[in-house]
């Protein structure tokens, strides 16, 4: 039997430590020390985009402003992702702790949890946790308060500038960047927007130290991460695994023996066919041969009974509806991709039209205003290129 390279980790949900103790120790350090520790740890944003967390905090800390904000992005909307919900349900204090750390580092007095509309059932629990948390803040003499903000259900609001627009009472539409939120965010003030999981990891790094965290994973993708495993698997669920695993190992562990493809990173991620499992590692770009795929944690497994046309059609329907409609490439592009594959399937357009659509998806990737429109090409191109015959026949 091959050596199992997939390493399970237990940091996020571990209960062997007190959040208050971690905070007590961490707040003894200077702001610069905390930033340096995060930078040394190599922690990157766990929402999927993978921006270095330490750097983000550093940028916000460097801004001079009378007001700054910390926002926890709990608008978990990527199809196939359900980890943040579990984190908030089970270890919300760790999330709040991470927010307090950030507030301390950047000098913010107010924080928000932007909670996905569908996660309203978490409100009572979160409010209770916030009560405890605010008492701690008083104990630490830290002037920091967290409020809940409930989203309205738009997928695009997971994108940080849309999230901020939505919090300001406007249509949830992405802003032009620059300026970035660390410079001008909520109400025009420097703002750090971090994913739920990222905030937990900042706490964990405070506990285990940058070295131990960096000791896990691979170069460019250190530490561990939560994966939401779904689809054709006998054990769907949430697993904390070291970064850098190959898809082959992943499929061995979770597949049902007939895995045809894995969609890494949800509808906005990439579809990897069986022949690429070996050479594909899960992590952020850079530092590795072969394919290295980032992910917000969504791992959807498809076995050979699935039609990849239907899978793609489903994603495109999702994007066609969830595009904010603001920019041309995304608003019209999504409609064209969807109508395009339908027309090919019906034989109204030649199979060669797929090439036009691939070029269009490339244009969307290059020119859409935000990550939503840019990432439609990921699933589109990876499915069409690898399962071309399924699109046509």
């Amino acid at each position: 039997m091959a050596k199992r390279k997939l390493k399970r980790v237990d940091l996020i949900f571990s209960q062997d430590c007190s959040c208050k103790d971690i905070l007590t120790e961490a707040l003894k350090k200077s702001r610069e020390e905390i930033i340096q520790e995060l930078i040394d740890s190599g922690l990157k944003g766990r929402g999927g985009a993978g921006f270095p967390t330490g750097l983000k905090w550093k940028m916000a800390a460097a801004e001079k402003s009378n007001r700054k904000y910390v926002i926890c992005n709990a608008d978990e909307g990527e199809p196939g992702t359900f980890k943040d919900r579990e984190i908030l349900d089970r270890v919300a204090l760790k999330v709040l702790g991470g927010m307090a750390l950030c507030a301390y580092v950047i000098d913010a007095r107010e924080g928000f949890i932007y909670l996905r509309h569908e996660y309203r059932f978490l409100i009572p629990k979160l409010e209770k946790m916030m009560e405890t948390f605010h008492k701690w803040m008083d104990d630490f003499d830290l002037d920091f308060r967290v409020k809940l903000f409930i989203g309205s259900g738009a997928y695009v609001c997971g994108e940080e500038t849309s999230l901020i627009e939505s919090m300001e009472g406007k249509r949830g539409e992405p802003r032009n960047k620059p300026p970035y939120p660390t410079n001008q965010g909520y109400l025009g003030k420097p703002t750090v927007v971090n994913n739920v999981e990222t905030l937990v990891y900042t706490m964990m790094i405070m506990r285990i130290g940058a070295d131990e965290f960096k000791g896990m994973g691979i170069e460019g993708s250190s530490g561990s991460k939560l994966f939401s495993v779904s689809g054709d698997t006998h054990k769907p669920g949430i697993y904390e695994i070291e970064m850098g695993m190959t898809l082959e190992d992943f499929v061995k562990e979770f597949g049902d023996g007939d895995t045809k493809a894995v969609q890494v990173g949800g509808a906005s991620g990439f579809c990897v066919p069986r022949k690429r499992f070996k050479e594909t590692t899960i992590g952020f770009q850079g530092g590795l041969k072969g394919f290295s795929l980032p992910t917000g944690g969504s791992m959807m497994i498809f076995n050979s009974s699935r039609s990849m046309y239907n899978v793609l059609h489903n994603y495109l329907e999702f994007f066609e509806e969830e595009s904010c409609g603001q920019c041309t490439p995304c608003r019209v592009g999504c409609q064209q991709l969807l109508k395009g594959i339908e027309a090919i399937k019906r034989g109204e357009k030649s199979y060669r039209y797929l090439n036009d659509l691939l070029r269009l998806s490339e244009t969307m990737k290059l020119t859409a205003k935000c990550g939503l429109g840019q990432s439609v090409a990921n699933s589109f191109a990876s499915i069409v290129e690898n399962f071309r015959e399924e699109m046509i026949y």
Partner: protein
Amino acid sequence: MTEKKINLTIDGKKISVPEGTTLLEAAKLEKVKIPTLCYHQDLCIAGNCRVCVVEVEGWRVLPAACATPAMEGMVVYTNSPLVRRSRRDILALLVSEHSTQCTTCYRSTNCELQELAAEYNIDNEIYINLLKDKTFTIDRTSWAIEKDESKCIRCQRCVRTCAELQKVNALDVINKGANMKIATFFDTVMSEVVCTNCGQCINRCPTGALTERRYIDEIWDALGDPEKHVIVQTAPAVRVALGEVLGYEPGVRVTGKMAAALKHLGFDSVLDTDFAADLTIMEEGHELLDRLKRKLVDKEDVALPMMTSCSPGWIKFIEHMYPDHLDHLSTCKSPQQMFGAIAKTYYAERKGLDPKNIVNVSVMPCSAKKYEANRMEMNDSGVQDVDLVCTTRELGHMIRQSGIDFKEIPNAKFDPFMGDSTGAAVIFGATGGVMEAALRTAYEVVTGREVPFDGLKITPVRGMEGIRETSVKLENVLPEWSFLENIELRVAIAHGLTNATQIMEDVAIGNSPYHFIEIMACPGGCIGGGGQPIPTNAEIRRKRAEAIYTEDEKMVIRKSHQNPEVIQLYKEFLGKPLGEKSHHLLHTKYTRRERV
């Protein structure tokens, strides 16, 4: 303070620009035109059409040039293969959701999408036509504005215009994804929403999605009807802009050619709204003095400051937004409506015509005038005072249809009897003009002397700042106006409804320091009106305003109270300003309206 400079390379050329310059502006400095659609000089940056994308070395994506500031060391390509391919794709996408019936579109040859699609040689068939399975009805419910969704490319210029320049928010974005569109509140028809009909959205619409409701056919019908006596009046701002739709550069005065062309079109009488503007000054100037007297001498509870009422967009705005403060408005009708009422009474009498057989056509720089003419109360002559209103643009179309070689036609004069005007009337077309004209007359009425400004040019009220203010001291007044001795007459001017709101906020809480305020709904006043040639921007408006002031200086008579025809009108017909007949024909009342 020295400005920080940013060094970058555009298309291989090293340049240096002030910090904060966008790539679009930087390219423009280098005489490189980057195509745009959602960008408009008058509006904030949206960055949503993505037509202006450029390639930047080392960047993962192509940023929008309009929304990306120049950064140190950037290497930018505005016309690389990747940029061209992407632009073509984006234009093709826009075309796929646009009704490409260019042959019958009112904006054909004046459409930004059409121009770019032709420039980039877009294949109309490459993508699937997204309008195929949908049906659209053109919203023609408003008197002034037509909305055709099938031509909308969702650039949101209209939305930003309505919000930023006018603070009306009649148009906004609804839905998301494929269903995202520009709509009114609850997607109701245009006639049912809070809209001032100012038409600024039309001026900034890159396509034919928003246009004025046209009356060209009705006007031709009237001209062809031998039973009808068709009169045309032209507003001051038309003559300095009409040229733009007939092959002239902005800022060329075509007054004589316009009069000649109108005669050629077959109007029985070619008259001038300027005449009525002078009449307005007589009435409004005296109304102001009357209000001051009632306040200062009779100690009556009179609403001050008095505010002008010439701009129908402004009138509709205040009726909706400040219904409790309508008493601040001058009761004077606008020049268009004064003209209409006088034409169907005095003019009809003198010509021996039945008012029912007179068709009053007016050419206006304005879309709101179409609404104004159709207001219920505007029929004091016994029939509808003004029958048909067309915009500067529509007149341009009519002249082209008629086959006249506009550039070659010799100048002509307006017809007599309501064709005479003064410099004071002409400047009505620019922001501050009504104020200047009113001061020229009121000051002279009160003191017996000309306003103390060189060449009658009251420069503090001129210009393009959003809000301007000044004061004129009244000294050595004539005996009958002794209560005004040493009074500092304080006046203010605002153009654009966002600026008007700023002034109104003070008026509403009784905190306004002024006696008299001029408000124009449109940026720049009527020269920037919603019926004027497209495009519009600050530079074009400045040129039109310059032309207006030149026209004023070329006039022999430059004060309204000296207009011989107006003097004659009072002598023969009206009696005196604010008299019985004036009250009936030239003054009006306003309607309280809902805010939603």
